[in-house]
């Protein structure tokens, strides 16, 4: 049986497909992104992470509440993800469906996929290798889940990958525009998660090294001047986010390092874990490395991680790849180094089931290396021509099994791990009993943001730490301001309990429900006539 094809037609078709590959990939990424969001929206897992609900609440408080405004961005989490929610979070559906946050993740997902394709293209990988690289990223069920939620990981992946991509282009071409773009993306990453701060340091070192290398490692004043000039040029923009954050903390909280050492900081949480003796990775580099590698493997799959590792070695040993690209590619390992160092220093915590007890916590951090693995594996596929189809088949098999076995460690992290708390009992009670009654609910957003979100009540119904004079008044004279109080009794980590329990007014409340994560107190009926039920303070600064 013969099929005759005109060779010119084939050439034209080939050229068209190569040209159209990126638009087709973008189209497919959008379809997959929307499909994944709908899947997790309808099965109710889209908001499984309590952190996702907290992120949405932060965004919502900027536009709605007793004291709306930019100050609601808070001090613990970096502001970019919440700022990007602002254009849509005002809409109740966008807020409660999680779409206001997920849409940022979804766009980031598409951008990261495109960046992986472009990165591989720029380092001389053929179309097949590029497509496999994108497939490894897109075929990761943890990525698909996180891009369907209001979490911040996908946004970070997008801005970090963009930063590293532009940095690689600068190493390759030496064009200053690429350095500016790299600085811009690194700056955005420093406003997304603290991983970005490490990328800034990592990228800074690479910029300095690259200039020094291009000047043949001379140590004369002319070289030092060039290094200084280029670095200042890069760092001015790249570090802007860091300085904005210092300034913000100084302005709002009176302490430039409030985010780092404040009562709600990760450092403060880690200190408590340390005291409890469960911060095992602190000061132990082997254990820190082991924990992060486990998280990486559980998120990225062992086989694909091994392929990525071999691909990285192959890239750094490949004589056809320029030295500049090799050095720039080191930046792809920044998340690996950052996470291990953060665990070692005790700034981060990671629980792996079977390694550190029987629970998961923050295991999603392992997802940070997925784009890097995709790029390195795509490179390997391109270079190992004889084994190209074998590896492609094995990748497909592993991805297929990942889906059929529903292996999403991030969902386990959200559903059964320490990230999850069953707040539905409290929020359901509020939804049923407080919805149609006048009066405010006093609650600590730092401790119970997930309850605020899940109750379905408007933000303006709540008095929390970010409501200024309402909070000050309600925690000193609760009976005048709070019809209901939600707090963890006898736990001074709960800011509401810490203050309200020391006031005589607490006697005027009845404990109406006791739940594992919070208790509900209600003002005694005879005191209702004296209760303020309207926002009387007007516009606050």
């Amino acid at each position, binding site marked *: 049986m*013969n099929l005759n094809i*005109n*060779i010119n037609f084939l050439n034209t078709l080939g050229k068209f497909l190569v040209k159209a590959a990126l638009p087709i990939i973008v189209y497919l990424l959008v379809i997959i992104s929307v499909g994944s969001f709908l899947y997790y929206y309808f099965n109710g897992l889209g908001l499984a992470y309590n952190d996702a609900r907290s992120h949405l609440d932060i965004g919502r408080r900027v536009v709605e509440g007793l004291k709306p405004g930019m100050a609601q961005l808070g001090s613990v989490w970096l502001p970019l993800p919440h700022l990007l929610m602002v254009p849509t979070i005002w809409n109740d559906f966008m807020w409660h469906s999680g779409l206001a946050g997920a849409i940022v993740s979804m766009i980031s997902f598409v951008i990261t996929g495109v960046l992986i394709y472009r990165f591989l293209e720029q380092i001389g990988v053929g179309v097949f290798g590029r497509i496999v690289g994108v497939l490894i990223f897109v075929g990761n069920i943890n990525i698909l889940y996180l891009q369907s939620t209001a979490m911040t990981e996908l946004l970070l992946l997008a801005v970090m990958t963009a930063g590293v991509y532009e940095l690689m282009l600068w190493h390759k071409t030496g064009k200053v525009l690429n350095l500016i773009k790299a600085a811009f993306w690194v700056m955005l990453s420093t406003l997304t998660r603290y991983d970005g701060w490490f990328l800034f340091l990592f990228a800074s070192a690479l910029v300095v090294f690259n200039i020094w290398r291009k000047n043949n490692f001379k140590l004369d004043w002319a070289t030092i001047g060039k290094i200084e000039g280029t670095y200042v040029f890069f760092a001015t923009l790249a570090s802007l986010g860091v300085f904005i954050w210092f300034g913000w903390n100084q302005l709002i909280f009176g302490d430039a390092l409030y985010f780092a050492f404040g009562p709600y900081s990760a450092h403060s949480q880690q200190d408590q874990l340390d005291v409890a003796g469960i911060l095992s990775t602190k000061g132990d580099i082997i254990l820190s490395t082991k924990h992060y590698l486990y998280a990486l*493997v559980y998120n990225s799959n*062992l*086989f694909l991680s091994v392929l990525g590792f071999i691909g990285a070695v192959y890239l750094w040993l490949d004589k056809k790849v320029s030295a500049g690209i090799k050095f720039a590619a080191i930046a792809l390992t920044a998340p690996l180094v950052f996470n291990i160092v953060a665990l070692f220093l005790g700034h981060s915590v990671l629980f792996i089931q079977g390694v550190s007890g029987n629970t998961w916590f923050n295991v999603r951090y392992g997802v940070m290396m997925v784009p890097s693995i995709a790029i390195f594996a795509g490179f390997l596929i391109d270079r190992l021509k*004889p084994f190209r189809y*074998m590896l492609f088949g094995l990748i497909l098999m*592993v991805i297929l099994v990942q889906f059929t076995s529903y*292996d999403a460690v991030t969902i386990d992290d959200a559903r059964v791990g320490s990230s999850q708390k069953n707040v539905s009992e409290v929020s359901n009670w509020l939804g049923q009993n407080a919805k149609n009654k006048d009066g405010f609910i006093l609650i600590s957003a730092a401790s119970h943001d997930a309850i605020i979100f899940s109750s379905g009540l408007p933000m303006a119904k709540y008095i929390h730490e970010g409501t200024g004079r309402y909070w000050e008044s309600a925690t000193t004279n609760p009976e005048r301001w709070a019809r209901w109080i939600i707090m963890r009794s006898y736990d001074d980590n709960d800011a509401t309990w810490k203050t309200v329990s020391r006031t005589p007014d607490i006697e005027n409340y009845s404990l109406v429900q006791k739940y594992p994560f919070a208790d509900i107190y209600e003002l005694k009926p005879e005191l209702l006539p004296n209760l303020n039920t309207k926002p009387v303070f007007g516009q606050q600064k």
Partner: protein
Amino acid sequence: MIKKITNKTLNIFKYFLISLGAIAVLITLLSFSIKGDTGNPIYYQTELDTKVGGPFESSGSTSRYALAKSIVDNGSLLFSTELAKFASPDVVGVNGKYTTLFTPGVSFAAVPFYYLGNLVGLPQLAAFLSTTFFALLNMLLVYKVSRKFYVSHALSIISGLIFGFATSATAYSNSLTQHHLSVTLLLLAILNAAGKRNFINNLTFGLVAGASALVDIPNLFMTVPVGLYILAQNFSVSRINEKLTLRMKLSVVGLMIGAIPMFAIFGWYNFQTTGSYTKLAQSVGRTDIFATDEIKEINKANIAKSGTSPSVVPFETRVQLNGFYILLISDERGIFYYSPIVIFGLIGLLLAVKNKVKENLAIVIISVAMVNVVLYSMFGDPWGGWSFGPRYLIPTLALLSIGIGYALTRSIKNPIVILLFTITLIYSVLVSALGTTTTNLIPPKVEALNLAVTVPYTYQYNIQLAQAEKAGTLIYNLYLKNMINVQTYIYIYAGIVSSLILALYYSAVIFTKVPANNENKRKLLNFNFWRKN
């Protein structure tokens, strides 16, 4: 003319005698792996005793034996209650009827052996010899595929012998499990792929692929790389001026036609056992009706635990880290811990790809091995229950053994390679002999440490059994028990096997002439020199 004919006849006669002698040696050596004990005259022929060290120690064998026995004795694919108890826990219950959990290929292959053995009162011995027969065939097939890489007879024979006697496959060469028959079918498929593409070869591949599914479902995954390669070989592209012609051989339909009968048999078998043409007994799951109360409780707990997982296949990526560790490097089942000799094979196959010597064939072989390793790394029980060595990787052991001959050819006079080969060979043969002589039932670490009386979870357990004078081999128990102890027997057996392989190897090292000048060295690299051997 007469002289020519006489020489030719003599040569044929010489090769015939050598082949006959070689097969006789292999059969003799393999006979030491036959499990059994003294009885009347031989135990286990009528006694369905599942004690450790005997042929029925593993339910993987008993359940398959029960099916062969049921087919011959009762003319049924379903078990009587007595047989179901014997085959438990690998029994499936559908509407009060019991059948084996496994696919029926191994039992079907054992049926003629069982039937003939039954006629002379040795049904177990004969049925289990079916696997021994396939083990013998596998050594010949490894030799045959190794020859495709222009490797000399001697070094190709070494490849075959290593698979047969220096890997954990040896311990399974007298068990009624899927491993050796699967290897036979995979090697036949690979040999088929190396041949010309015509209707008969395509038909044969279809038959082999279909039969492999009857033997064990994962074989289907392992035949995929071979199938894709064969499919591609049925297409050709040629260019004339501005026209590109894509040709497809009509004989490609042979692939499908060949597979149909086997899948039809499978469908019929499923219908008889589960009531559905497409429902596998494995998908129904084990019945615990014959299990002890303790086992029933454990099963209940497991069901409750796994009830949260919507997994539809027995493979999970989550367990891959553990799977790779267990199958590749652990002291429990690690392939390189039990049979380090196959490292030479891996190097050999990679060298073949690098040197473009039968590059495509080498890639197909590596692909099948990779599918085997990656697939079972995702299997919930990479240990293969209580077993000896990485039993799920027996196909990989065979495939890597193929490359050993090529690796040795490439470094025929290298003293470091000679030393390393000698050491790893002796170690691998000894470990393999331990399993063959004592038991295949070594618990996984997690179970071994929780037993009432803890036992080692490595081949240390086999050493303990040998020290306790517990042997499972029939020949030792029948004839040698009163003459030598088990340890001495193992040393003698391993010594004979190692000596045979090393004698062949050293002969090849001594008698192979490596050309001195550059031109001939180039020829050596291109293997024109070796082609003549």
